[in-house]
């Protein structure tokens, strides 16, 4: 009896399982589980999209921040913004990685240990701000307000610049001039009477032959320029890349010229020689727009392809071929002016050579060359006049007379030497000075001479460890900044506005500036409650009505009426030079005792067993600012030392193994992962700048990769404008002691 029951039950349950199985199988076959997409939760749709302006780098693309349940989960390009055009570089897309970085500064800090020990105690904003005001006031009382200096980088600095100008000091400088694009601006100013600015006025999308000298577009990810770069390549442009390293751009080039580092001026003069010798230029255009062509022709006569070959290592027929390619498509031929051009100390002259070569191609104001720009005029806030002050201290009398902007390295020197007068207090805004100004020890020595230093930052970078007070600024996604309205081919004014509330107790820069203004008696320079009110007032004063103003906050940008990009062919353009024309021969340089036309001088060779250290960018990082960003680290977790394969074999370096890099004295950095490659000359090594962080507060960046700044002790100062060329450091390399970190023979 029991037997039968059991067997029936067993049968039934077995059948039941089979039935369920069959049933589910049937469901599956009919695709009913298409419902999986609904419970995926994949790629949530935002419940709020806020337009603002990115600040992961300094290109300042317009972005859209997508929020869900109050959390920014992704950032995309703003289709209305002329710089991003709806597209974005990896760093901008990685914005949430900064916003939600737990290492962010959350509270004001006051130093308790020695400078550099990174020992702080948390403080209230009241106490911290009082300390800063006190610090500045004391220094001003003792040494004058000019003894307070500011070193900065970023759009948010504008409020502090107003503050310090109001305080009465002219000593405000950004390293982005003397340590980055300054020489280029001066080189072009001397030639054309104006610089190229940022964003550069390059009509690259229409260029038919493009020359990049060291400019590594594609690893330098300035969004718009990379878009234009891809566009011109897609249209069949020819590409010539001069670079000791086979960069990504070189990988797309029709000609890769692996020039010997330091010989670029010879190459450029060699091109000019060929173009002039062959008459491959528009004589009428030269007549109308330039002076000094005959002097130039005489000057470059000795830079024959053969002579240039000896210096650069580039074959004579390649020099002729590339000169021919360049001239064949002129004026739609462009020699990129570069970006970070502080290389060897003669960088203004090299930039001038580039400017002159462009002039020979006749591309100023022509399609494919340099376009005209315009802007959206926005009324400024009416402010009282800034007080008078002593001259800026960034240079001595008669030095660097062609500098057009303050020199950050000059302010450091003034702090160190107390000449022309002492600088005793620094405000450092968003600028990690130990890894920015060449020769870190000098920077640290200068800091030790200060009576007071305040650092304003988002993350606890190395510079914060040396400050007396650290003020936590909230990220660009959490604050208003001033309107951003550059001169550009499509004029615009972009709005940076908060997407989420600030984390912790971090505050926007404008609030800090206003608070300090209160304490320093400078409130008259901030006649508004908050930037939103300020911006509304300015827009109203510029003729925008309420609806338009509301639209700006919806779209994030005001678009202006573009003016013509190109000059009519016969147009007599008034260049801003002393002669009113493009100057191949610069009388003002001659008068000042400098070469009126760029001259080549053979660079120093690395001592035996050493290599010139070259640095650059990774596309998913911005200098050292992103080394702690967990989203971006997945793409590029550490920098690598590029070493020529033959050299690596000689020195026992394995691909994927680790090496130590030794500089002057007892400076060194590493261990750094080794990339054994064919992609670099045997006389240099290369690494991406911005790794090897020592700041303990950067938990993800700490100890990752190597810090090129640690071995960048030498620099050559450009005599024309004070730029600091620092591609002049020679390093030795060795396998790292713990070489069990792996590696294979390549």
């Amino acid at each position: 009896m029991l037997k039968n029951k059991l067997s029936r039950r067993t049968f039934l349950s077995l059948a039941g399982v089979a039935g369920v199985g069959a049933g589910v199988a049937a469901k599956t076959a009919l695709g009913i589980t298409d419902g999986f997409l609904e419970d995926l939760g994949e790629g949530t749709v935002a419940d709020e999209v806020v337009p603002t302006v990115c600040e992961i780098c300094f290109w300042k693309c317009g972005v859209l921040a997508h929020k869900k349940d109050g959390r920014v989960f992704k950032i995309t390009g703003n289709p209305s913004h002329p710089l991003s055009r709806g597209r974005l570089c990896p760093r901008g897309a990685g914005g949430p990685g900064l916003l939600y970085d737990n290492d962010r500064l959350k509270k004001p800090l006051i130093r308790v240990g020695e400078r550099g020990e990174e020992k702080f105690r948390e403080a209230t904003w009241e106490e911290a701000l009082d300390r800063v005001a006190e610090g500045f006031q004391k220094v001003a009382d003792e040494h004058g307000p000019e003894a307070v200096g500011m070193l900065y980088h970023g759009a948010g600095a504008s409020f502090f610049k107003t503050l310090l100008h109001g305080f009465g000091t002219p000593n405000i400088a950004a390293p982005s001039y003397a340590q980055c694009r300054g020489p280029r601006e001066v080189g072009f100013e001397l030639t054309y009477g104006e610089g190229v600015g940022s964003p550069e006025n390059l009509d690259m999308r229409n260029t038919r032959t493009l020359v990049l000298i060291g400019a590594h577009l594609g690893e330098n990810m300035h969004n718009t320029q990379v878009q234009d770069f891809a566009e011109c390549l897609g249209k069949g442009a020819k590409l010539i890349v001069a670079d000791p390293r086979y960069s990504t751009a070189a990988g797309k080039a029709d000609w890769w010229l692996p020039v010997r580092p330091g010989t670029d001026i010879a190459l450029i003069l060699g091109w000019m020689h060929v173009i002039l010798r062959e008459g491959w230029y528009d004589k009428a255009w030269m007549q109308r727009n330039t002076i000094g062509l005959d002097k130039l022709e005489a000057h470059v006569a000795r830079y024959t392809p053969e002579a240039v070959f000896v210096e650069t290592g580039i074959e004579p027929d390649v020099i002729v071929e590339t000169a021919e390619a360049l001239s064949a498509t002129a004026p739609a031929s462009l020699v990129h002016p570069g970006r970070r051009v502080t290389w060897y100390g003669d960088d203004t002259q090299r930039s001038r050579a580039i400017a002159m070569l462009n002039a020979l191609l006749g591309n100023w104001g022509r399609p494919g060359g340099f376009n005209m720009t315009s802007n959206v005029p926005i009324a400024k806030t009416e402010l009282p006049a800034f007080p008078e002050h002593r001259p800026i201290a960034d240079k001595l009398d008669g030095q660097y007379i062609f500098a057009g902007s303050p020199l950050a390295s000059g302010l450091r020197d003034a702090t160190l030497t107390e000449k022309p007068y002492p600088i005793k207090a620094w405000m450092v805004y968003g600028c990690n000075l130990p890894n920015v100004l060449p020769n870190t020890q000098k920077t640290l020595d200068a800091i030790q001479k200060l009576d007071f230093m305040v650092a304003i930052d988002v993350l606890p970078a190395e510079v914060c460890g040396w400050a007396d007070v650290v003020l936590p600024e909230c990220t660009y996604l959490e604050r208003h900044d001033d309107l951003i309205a550059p001169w550009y081919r499509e004029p615009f004014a972009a709005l940076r506005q908060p997407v989420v509330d600030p984390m912790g107790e971090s505050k926007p820069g404008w609030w800090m500036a206003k608070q300090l203004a209160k304490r320093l008696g400078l409130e008259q320079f901030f006649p508004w409650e908050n930037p939103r009110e300020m911006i509304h007032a300015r827009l109203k004063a510029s003729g925008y009505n309420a609806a338009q103003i509301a639209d700006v906050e919806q779209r994030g940008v005001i678009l202006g009426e573009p003016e013509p990009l190109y000059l009519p062919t016969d147009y007599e353009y008034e260049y801003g030079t002393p002669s009113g024309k493009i100057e191949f021969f610069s009388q003002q340089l001659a008068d000042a005792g400098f070469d009126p036309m760029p001259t080549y001088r053979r660079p120093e060779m690395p001592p035996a067993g050493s290599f010139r250290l070259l640095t650059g960018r990774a596309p998913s990082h911005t200098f050292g600012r992103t080394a702690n960003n967990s989203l971006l680290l997945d793409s590029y977790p550490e920098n690598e030392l590029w070493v020529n394969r033959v050299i690596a074999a000689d020195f026992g370096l394995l691909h994927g193994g680790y090496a130590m890099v030794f500089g002057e004295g007892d400076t060194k950095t590493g261990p750094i992962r080794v990339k054994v490659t064919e992609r670099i000359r045997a006389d240099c090594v290369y690494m991406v700048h911005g790794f090897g962080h020592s700041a303990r507060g950067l938990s993800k960046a700490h100890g990752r990769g190597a810090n090129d700044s640690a071995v960048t002790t030498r620099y050559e100062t450009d005599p024309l404008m004070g730029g600091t060329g620092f591609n002049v450091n020679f390093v030795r390399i060795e396998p790292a002691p713990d070489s069990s970190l792996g590696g294979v023979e390549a």
Partner: protein
Amino acid sequence: MQSLTKRRFGMGVDTVACVGCSACAIACKTENDVPQGHTRRWVNQRVEGRFPHLTMMVWSDSCQQCDDSPCVDACPTGASHVHEATGTTQVDRNKCTGCKACIAACPYGARYVRPEGYVDKCTLCIHRLKRGERTACEEVCPTKAIVVGDLNDSRSELSRRIAARHHRRQKVEAGTNPRFYLFT
């Protein structure tokens, strides 16, 4: 919601335009909540030759959306399947046991195990395609190198590029018939 009936979606990457910046990879990460330390999308760089005679190819890479998907063949629970309407291979996370047969089966290394335990890979942003939007990678790419389209539609941008440009595919010898094209 757009109705996606009987399409065959594929992807193309223009290796002339692509600079290997990884914007696609990061945009994909934020769009699709890809966990840290894992990638649905990545960048490859291939350099050949001897100094100074070198050539390079750079491209953005991911699941190849194969016509003959070995991952679908290998999956014992039907989690890895072909989505009828789009022709794309997808993973039903409700069915995945994390046995990893699909990871062994994929010659492209396109799949990974999420910390939750189920397998994940590029879905061709099917949730966006359904809304008539472009995939996250295509939308963000600063060089417009990425194009996603219907291979069954000869007028789609992707089909047109395949017709007009030199193109290659990867590991074709594996018999996967990938719908991922590299334009050279």
